[in-house]
C-alpha cells in the first residue's frame, strides 16, 4: 500500500473549502488542520495510511487563541462557557495571570523521546470527541510493555510556503514504535502544547485537540506508527 487515502466526508470537505475561500477573500485568518496516520509493518511496508481533517480544536485551543487576538485574561474560575481559562492535562484549571502560549525551541508541540505528556500523543479510547475534553481518554504510555508504544522524539516542525495557494504550512510529525510483543490498538490522537502559560507557571501542558479515529488502527508488534498534524493558514492576496 503506497497510497494515502483521504477519508474526509465530501460534504464536510466542501464546507471547509468554502470557509477557507471566504477567509482568504475577506482577510480573516482561518486555520486549516489535517491529520495523517500511517502504519508500517516490521518489513517497512505501509499497512495503513489515511489523511483527514482534524476536527477538534477544543475549548483550551479556543481560549488560548482568543486570549491572544481578543486580549482576554483572568476571566472566570471555571472551565466552560463564559470563562477564559485553561484546563491542563492533569485536570487543574489555570485561572490567574496570563493565559497564553510560550514557544521556545524546546517547547510548543515538541516532545522529547519518551515523553507522552506533550506533543503528539495517542490513545486507545474511543469516546466521542467533546469540546471540553482536556486529555485523551486512555493515553498509551511510553515503554515496551503490553499495550505500550515507544515514543520517539518529535520531528522538527517543517514549514513551507506555497506561492500559488498562498498557504503557510507547518507539519508536525512523530513516530511511535511497537516493541511490546503484541498488537497495540490506536483509536485517538491528541495534540498537547507544552508551556501554555497560566497561573504564572510557565510550563503547563494543555491538550488543544483530540481526534477520535473513524476506525481502530492496529500497530503490529515491531511495527511503526507515524502521526502527522499539518496546520495551515491561507494568506490573502
Amino acid at each position, binding site marked *: 500500500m503506497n497510497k494515502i487515502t483521504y477519508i474526509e466526508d465530501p460534504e464536510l470537505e466542501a464546507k471547509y473549502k468554502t470557509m477557507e475561500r471566504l477567509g482568504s477573500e475577506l482577510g480573516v485568518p482561518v486555520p486549516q488542520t489535517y491529520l495523517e496516520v500511517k502504519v508500517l509493518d516490521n518489513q517497512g511496508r505501509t499497512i495503513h495510511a489515511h489523511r483527514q481533517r482534524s476536527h477538534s480544536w477544543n475549548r483550551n485551543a479556543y481560549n488560548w487563541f482568543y486570549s491572544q487576538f481578543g486580549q482576554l485574561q483572568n476571566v472566570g474560575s471555571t472551565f466552560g*462557557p463564559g470563562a477564559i481559562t485553561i484546563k491542563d492535562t492533569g485536570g487543574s484549571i489555570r485561572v490567574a495571570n496570563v493565559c*497564553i502560549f510560550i514557544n521556545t525551541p524546546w517547547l510548543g508541540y515538541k516532545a522529547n523521546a519518551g515523553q507522552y505528556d506533550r506533543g503528539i500523543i495517542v490513545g486507545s479510547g474511543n469516546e466521542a470527541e467533546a469540546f471540553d475534553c482536556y486529555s485523551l481518554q486512555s493515553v498509551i504510555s511510553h515503554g515496551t510493555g503490553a499495550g505500550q508504544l515507544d515514543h520517539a522524539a518529535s520531528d522538527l516542525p517543517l514549514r513551507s510556503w506555497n506561492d500559488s495557494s498562498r498557504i503557510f504550512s507547518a507539519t508536525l510529525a512523530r513516530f511511535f514504535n511497537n516493541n511490546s510483543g503484541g498488537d497495540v490498538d490506536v483509536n485517538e490522537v491528541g495534540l498537547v502544547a507544552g508551556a501554555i502559560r497560566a497561573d504564572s507557571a510557565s510550563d503547563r501542558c494543555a491538550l488543544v485537540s483530540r481526534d477520535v479515529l473513524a476506525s481502530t488502527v492496529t500497530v503490529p508488534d515491531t511495527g511503526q506508527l507515524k502521526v502527522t498534524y499539518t496546520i495551515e493558514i491561507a494568506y490573502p492576496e
Partner: protein
Amino acid sequence: MITNINYTENKAIEAKYQQLERLGADLGVPVPRTLLQLEAFDGNGNLIHAHRQRSHSWNRNFYNWMMSQMATLNLDSGTFGPSNLNLKDTAGTTQTTTMAFVINCNVSDATRGLRGESGDDNHGIIVGSGTLAENFEHYSLQSKITNGTGPGQLSYIEQEPYARSYDPVSKTYSSAMARYFNNNSGASVSINETGLVVRDIKVQTASLRVMVCRDVLVSTITLPDTGQLKVTYTIELVYPD
C-alpha cells in the same frame, strides 16, 4: 444631531462574513470577528458622526502572529513578506531572530497589549489622516496623528479597560476596546485611518510595538475644535455548540 449608529458594511460583503462565521462555528474552527465603530462629538457633546463597520484589515503581522501561535513556530529570518514568518515593527524593523517567539500581550494594564496609555500615540488604538488604500503589508499608519494640542494633533486619552462579555445564546465572546481622542488643537482635525498596535509582542527579549491592522475610513471624519472622537474595536469569537 445624530442619534443612531449607522452600520455601513456592504450587504454582500456582510453576508460573506456571516457565512464564514457560521461555517467556523459549525466546523469547530476559530474565526475572529472584528468590528470598528467611530463616534464624533462636537464641543457641546452632541453626536455629529457615528458609524459601525467590519474591520477588514488584519495585516501580515497579525497573520504571522496567529500562525506562530497556532502552529507553535518560531520566527524565521528573511524579508518581511510571503514565505517568511516574522514581524515588522512600527519603526519598520523586521524582527528575524531565530530565538523564542514569546507573546505576552493580553495583560490588562495600560502599558501592554492593545491598551494605550494616556498620551501614548505609539500603541493601542491610534488614528491618522492618511488615505492610502489598505495593504496587507502595512506596518504603520500612513500619517499618524500625534498626541498633543498643536495644529493637527489630538490628545490621546488612556484607553478604556476592555469590556468583556459572553452571550450564552450565540456562544459569542466579545472584547470591546475603546479610546477617546480630544481635539484641543484650536482647529478641526481630519481622521481617515485607524489602527491597532500591540505592545509587548516579544521576540527574543525585546518588547516591540507591532501594528496588526489598519482601517481606512470610507469618508473623512472631521473633528471640530474641542470635539471628541471615540474609536471602538470589538473582537469576537463564536464558540462551537
